[in-house]
């Protein structure tokens, strides 16, 4: 089936929402019907092209981690549509979901927690093959040994029989990566893959991920709070705040000319390893509010140095700055600009 020159995106997400009900005691439930929700992800929309590395950047409460898990349907969305390789993930049946799992994998933030303490890493990686019945029981061990080699856990035979507690943090993360990659997935969601790894090892792990990307033709979703790492690793970046995407664009666009006041603040906040560099920080007031009752209108408005009237009333939609760069901010909406500069 030809599609002509219309390329459908690899991943397409629209209207994605995840609300977590706030836990209440038995009494509270009996007394009132009103439920409160943590709006972890609130109407998120983006697309990802095949072969690119898409960054989801944000601080705590931004919803980036939840979005990653929703993508792989490790948790159920409250509403919304997720299409990966033209398959509707949200309404997929359990059997289809199992095939999907083979094609979409996750790398976790804490490599110690991500490995069962009672399984050798060889067993842990081999389990992936067992689950999907890849190869025969003889060839599976061989495949695992090759993967151990590939992720730098050499000599492979030695590492096959090691338990996670016998490995260093960086080595554990390599094992986690090996387990994800052995299924030769098409999409990999990496949730803060180097946050808990030593600084000098981070580059090693990231370079490993990049080289695997080349070899396996992967598409990555890279979730992080570390902007500098995202700058190194990602092609496109989406910045999230309190469950919403506030800015999305190519890496150069977002880093060199951030538009959203929150993005600007984030960029200026990062410590730079250069003592001569003069830091000019434009920090917003206060701290991130609770995602249970997010501010009305634009969620950032109470802290925004550039907020004006409409910001507390109406939520901004995504406004195009360029073909690839979009911002959710009233400062850039044409109507608002006209209102701001009535003489222009």
């Amino acid at each position, binding site marked *: 089936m030809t599609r002509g020159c219309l390329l459908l995106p690899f991943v397409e997400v629209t209207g994605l929402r995840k609300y977590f009900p706030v836990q209440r005691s038995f009494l509270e439930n009996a007394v009132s019907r009103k439920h409160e929700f943590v709006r972890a992800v609130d109407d998120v929309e983006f697309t990802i092209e095949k072969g690119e590395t898409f960054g989801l950047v944000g601080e705590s409460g931004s919803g980036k981690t939840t979005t990653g898990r929703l993508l792989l349907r490790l948790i159920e969305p409250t509403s919304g549509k997720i299409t990966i390789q033209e398959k509707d993930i949200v309404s997929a049946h359990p059997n289809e979901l199992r095939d999907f799992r083979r094609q979409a994998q996750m790398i976790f933030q804490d490599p110690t927690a991500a490995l069962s303490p009672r399984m050798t890493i060889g067993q842990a990686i081999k389990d992936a093959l067992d689950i999907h019945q890849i190869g025969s029981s003889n060839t599976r061990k061989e495949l695992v040994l090759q993967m151990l080699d590939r992720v730098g856990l050499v000599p492979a035979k030695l590492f096959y029989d090691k338990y996670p507690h016998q490995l260093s943090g960086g080595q554990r993360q390599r094992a986690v990566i090996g387990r994800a990659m052995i299924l030769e997935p098409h999409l990999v969601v990496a949730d803060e893959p180097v946050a808990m790894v*030593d*600084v000098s090892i981070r580059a090693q792990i990231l370079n490993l991920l990049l080289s695997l990307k080349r070899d396996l033709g992967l598409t990555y979703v890279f979730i992080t*709070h570390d*902007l500098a790492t995202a700058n190194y690793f990602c092609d496109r970046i989406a910045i999230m705040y309190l469950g919403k995407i506030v800015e999305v664009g190519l890496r150069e666009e977002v880093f060199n000319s951030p538009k959203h006041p929150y993005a600007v603040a*984030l960029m200026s906040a990062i410590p730079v390893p250069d003592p001569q560099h003069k830091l000019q920080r434009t920090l917003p007031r206060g701290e991130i509010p609770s995602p249970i009752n997010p501010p009305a209108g634009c969620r950032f408005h109470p802290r925004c140095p550039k907020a004006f009237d409409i910001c507390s009333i109406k939520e901004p939609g995504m406004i195009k700055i360029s073909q690839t760069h979009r911002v959710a901010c009233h400062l850039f909406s044409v109507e608002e600009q006209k209102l701001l500069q009535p003489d222009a």
Partner: protein
Amino acid sequence: MVKPLLSIQNLSVEYASKRGQVKAVTDVSLVLDEGSTLGIVGESGSGKSTLGFAILNLIPLPGRIVAGRITFDHTDILKQNEDDMRRIRGGQISIIFQDPLTSLNPLLKIRDHFTELLRIHSPSTSKEDAISKAGQLLDNLAISPERLSDYPHQFSGGMRQRVMIGLALALNPRLVIADEPTTALDVIVEAQILELMKRLKDEYGLTVILITHNIGIVAEMADRIAVMYAGQIVEMGPTNDIFADPLHPYTKGLLESAPNILHPERSMRPIPGSPPDLITLPSGCKFHPRCSRVFEPCRIREPLPVECNRRLVACHLYD
């Protein structure tokens, strides 16, 4: 010649473990002038946090200080008895911990944290005075004094860390040790706290030891840096000099491996290998298995710190 406020000579700290002695800190010496900020940089296992705790003689069992001398303003720290040490801790030298969540008592109101502290150190202080002082401190830290009657869990991470800083400054200490003070915080909050710390440093004329793995923070906050690896200081000197021209291969590797948002092409270069096992350390120079410029003496002899380009470096390349 100004006498240094803090002087550490040949300090060694070891922990007993099932597999043997963990040499957390080995033969560390440094001096700290009053009013300066020293950044101690290292990764996990470098010994930086252990060093910080040793200054306050707070090494928990099964750890022990096995050698060395720590002199703080004429006082030999390691020779003090517990009562005197208690007076020094909080009063002369205070510490800000990494995780404000677990460092504050969840059962005490914020106000009580302060009154406890102030009255332990000067029992004659009245409760009203203590509370009013606490209010002043918090005000200076951009927390409304009304929040004194709240509990720690009602505060956000950034605010808790400000409370920690307030507690650390309440008794006007001369030296503040900050152990990874912003690691557990979000990016913007981290920036807010760093700005706050800079302001307070000037305002109170503090001497600060900042322990961190983040070289971006030391670039911003520290006058001098000590780089630690496997329990030893491998390079120490003025911040500007070290960043402009790192001498020790590990320092160089550390700087190059850090992400740099302004110059991404110069950053994220890995150091091969992994940090060593502190029980069975490599022979000679502890860094030699990972060093790109290793040569003969590195495997055999431990390099001693030498002066080079206005700083100390422990590397055979500069012997």
